[in-house]
């Protein structure tokens, strides 16, 4: 994609976001994919490579859309402003009737991941989130499974008052920033996507070595890629096929390697049963 094509795609995306959803059904235009910090979406160079890869395979322009929070991306999907998004399992389970599961990444051979409780490396005693009472705690995003739902459920299961358990808690709106906050000492603990922490340990070990994984949660369905509910079936199949075949193509494999993933699979809602259970535990519809 050259500069002209990029600008044209940008104009098309803006136009589509402003237009009613039905109006652009006849002219699909570029495929717009929203990203969230369920992976390292601030790696701009990688996103460009992936964008080019998808555009080449789909024979249509592809554009990535970034927003500051999970909620904003979810709302774009729900509002049919974008075609697809890589979201967390938690919002997917909340809105699974208005989103379609496109694909689930496979990590370490499984479409599953864990939530980590991390503490500063100087803290050698804390072994779980329950040891961090009265501390300052960092959550990722209020719509993140690993960065908020899992620790909240853990506290709930322990019979703690979630509102007062921590002296203070805050959101960083990115898993990477949770690691930053704990490494810098702003927070004495934080909940982070295990896949993101593992990937950071490969890419930026100088950062993760300032933290220690105090505990790991049970496995949950890996943050999935979803599409808007009314995406045409042909486009759905084409996009799903391109994603699932990435691990069998050299260029796709290289991209997956950079993502620290094994590949993509169609997945199913059963993978997210644990998330649904936690939602039920916390009374979230």
């Amino acid at each position, binding site marked *: 994609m050259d500069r002209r094509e990029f600008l044209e795609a940008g104009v098309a995306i803006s136009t589509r976001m402003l237009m009613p959803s039905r109006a652009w059904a006849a002219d699909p235009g570029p495929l717009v994919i929203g990203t969230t910090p369920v992976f390292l979406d601030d790696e701009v160079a990688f996103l460009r490579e992936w964008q080019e890869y998808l555009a080449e395979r789909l024979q249509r322009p592809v554009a990535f859309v970034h927003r500051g929070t999970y909620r904003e991306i979810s709302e774009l999907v729900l509002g049919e402003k974008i075609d697809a998004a890589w979201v967390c399992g938690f919002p997917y389970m909340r809105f699974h009737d208005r989103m379609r599961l496109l694909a689930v990444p496979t990590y370490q051979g499984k479409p599953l991941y864990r939530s980590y409780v991390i503490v500063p490396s100087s803290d050698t005693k804390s072994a779980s989130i329950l040891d961090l009472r009265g501390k300052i705690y*960092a959550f990722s995003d209020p719509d993140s499974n690993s960065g908020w739902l899992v620790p909240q459920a853990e506290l709930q299961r322990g019979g703690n008052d979630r509102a007062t358990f921590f002296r203070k808690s805050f959101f960083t709106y990115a898993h990477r920033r949770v690691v930053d906050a704990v490494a810098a000492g*702003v927070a004495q603990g934080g909940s982070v996507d295990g896949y993101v922490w593992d990937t950071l340990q490969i890419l930026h070990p100088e950062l993760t070595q300032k933290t220690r994984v105090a505990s790991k949660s049970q496995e949950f369905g890996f943050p999935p890629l979803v599409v808007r509910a009314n995406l045409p079936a042909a486009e759905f199949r084409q996009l799903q096929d391109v994603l699932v075949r990435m691990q069998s193509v050299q260029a796709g494999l290289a991209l997956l390697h950079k993502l620290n993933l094994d590949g993509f699979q169609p997945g199913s809602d059963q993978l997210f049963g644990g998330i649904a259970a936690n939602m039920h535990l916390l009374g979230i519809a």
Partner: protein
Amino acid sequence: MLRDISYRYKIPATIIAVIVVTALAIAVPLISSANDAAKRDLIEHALSLGKTLSRSLQPAMLHDELWQAYEIVTTPFDRPLEESLRKQAIILLDAQGAVYVATDPKRFPSLEPFAKLGAGPAKLSQAIAEQGEEPLVFEDLDPDRLIMAVPVLAVDKTRLGTVVLEYSKDIFRPRFLDTLRRAAISTALILLILVPFGWLWGKRIASPLLDLSAAIGKVPKTRAADIQFPAPAGKDEIGILGRRFAEMLAGLKEKASLEKKVVAAERLAAVGRLTAGIAHEINNPLGGMLNAISTYKRQGAQDPSFVERTMSLLERGLTHIAPTVIAASSTSGSIPRAMRCAAAARPTGPAPITATGSCSCVLVLIGGFLVDYAEIMSDSVGAIAQQLDVVRPASPRNADRSSPSD
């Protein structure tokens, strides 16, 4: 000690010392001024940063977005953060004076009352509590740190918190060292040019003084005529002194010449007095002898008794002259001609004394004495002249003046 050092070194060294002191006197205030300017720049920059942060932090504090506040306060810092934290820190205090967030959370943990974090923070907290809407600058609150406090105000001027900017005074050191290095290089270059110039200039200034000193040093040992000293042309003190010395040298030469003339004149006077004395010692007896001879010629020819009386008078006269002639001849070293004449005129055997024989013998003696007298005078004058030659100057002019003809 300093007084014993030659002006050959003292003047150039003094000029170089003045150059070095001047260079340092210029460089040191400049460095100090640069250091002060660096501090002023830092304060201005920090206050500007503090005001910017204050505005940026307002929504984060209003919405209690701690991480957003942390990202804002760490924005001005270079990465990795740890290296920057040694030089500066930013602490955001809430309205109650507790740490909301800081760039160095390990040193300033969130939610801790700032006043309890040490004596410095306690003083600062007190000052902040009394602070109005204007930023504060604390240069002496901490000996090692420069601290500024900028309030975070809501739209209605309600105080939400305070941004405290803390800078290590070591932050000036690289800039100070850089200024010092630049000043040192400039000063060294200036000195590299001025020091040799100063040395040569000093030598040039000292040169007439050294020439004068060397010439004066020769005065007691060397004859004034042998001292070569070109009088300096300048009108400064050394020029005046040099010209006076040259005049003094000329006076000494003239004095020496006059002294020689006086000695020669005194010796000639002594010769005159000697010859006058000799003449006096000879002339009186000679006059008596001539009178006796004259009387003998007028009356004694007919009276034989006159012969004996005349001879007796002549003998007494000659006896009177003889010691003078012998003394004078000892000066010249010659045997008196009178003695040789007497020896030649005296008969070899015994002979009666006759009037004619005695008269001729006496005349011979007188003639010999007169010749001796003339020679003695001539020899005496020659001997004196020879002695004068000993002290005669070697110059042709003086040699001419001291010729034997004088």
